[in-house]
């Protein structure tokens, strides 16, 4: 996987606007449609929000690194932190019908990440480095050049 773009922010939700713009710009340049790029942006926002809330437990001065790598058809965003480990793939996918019938608020973030992206991978060294990889493949149906 080549071509890496990197951004590092401090762990505050008011820095996520900068991340969203960074990812949107890269996804559009890579060739995704605006709609598809918005899905990637939202998945990355959810991953960063999880880091802020769970890995860093709302500490505002920790570091989150966002790396974007791609090859011809694969676009990957890595969200890297040094906080408490959390594997989103171990989170049970909620039964949405049941979940919503009880009007529960939480649990939608991981669901969204996994639904909006083609693949979500997780690598971690406990206490040292956690990495969530959000992967999306460019296809004729989600590219800006479709039609």
């Amino acid at each position, binding site marked *: 996987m080549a071509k890496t773009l990197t951004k590092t922010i401090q762990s505050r939700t008011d820095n*996520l*606007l900068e991340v*969203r713009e960074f990812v949107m710009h890269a996804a559009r340049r890579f060739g995704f449609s605006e*709609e598809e790029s918005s899905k990637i942006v939202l998945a990355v926002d*959810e991953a960063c929000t999880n880091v802020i809330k769970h890995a860093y437990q709302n500490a505002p001065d920790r570091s989150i690194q966002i790396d974007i790598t791609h090859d011809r058809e694969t676009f990957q965003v890595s969200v890297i932190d040094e906080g408490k480990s959390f594997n989103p793939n171990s989170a049970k996918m909620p039964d949405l019908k049941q979940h*919503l019938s009880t009007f529960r608020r939480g649990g*939608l973030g991981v669901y*969204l990440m996994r639904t909006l992206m083609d693949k979500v991978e997780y690598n971690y060294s406990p206490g040292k480095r956690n990495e969530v990889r959000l992967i999306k493949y460019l296809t004729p149906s989600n590219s800006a050049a479709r039609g």
Partner: protein
Amino acid sequence: MRLKTKDVKGVTLIELKGNVMGGPDASSLNEELHKLIEGGKKNIVVDLGDVKFMNSSGLGMLIGALTTVRNAGGQLKLARASEKIESLLIVTKLITVFEHHEKVDEAIGSFK
């Protein structure tokens, strides 16, 4: 997020603007809803037409708002969700929980 409330034909219209991301925004909306309910205003339309971005915390905030209003015996409906936000409501199946109207007038008229 900015929040503006007005009364239209006996229905309370809450206009949300900007980025809807839960957190402190959820508290402002919740406070506003409690004031409205105490004042006997329980028919509510949330106008999403000027919302630029919404994440799962923002969706959670709307679920919380719906619960608060329903528990008070009222109704809360959504209006003018952009294509992007509507697709988010579809993906999360929230479209089956909320009543959504394309136009604010339609949403207000639906209370009659």
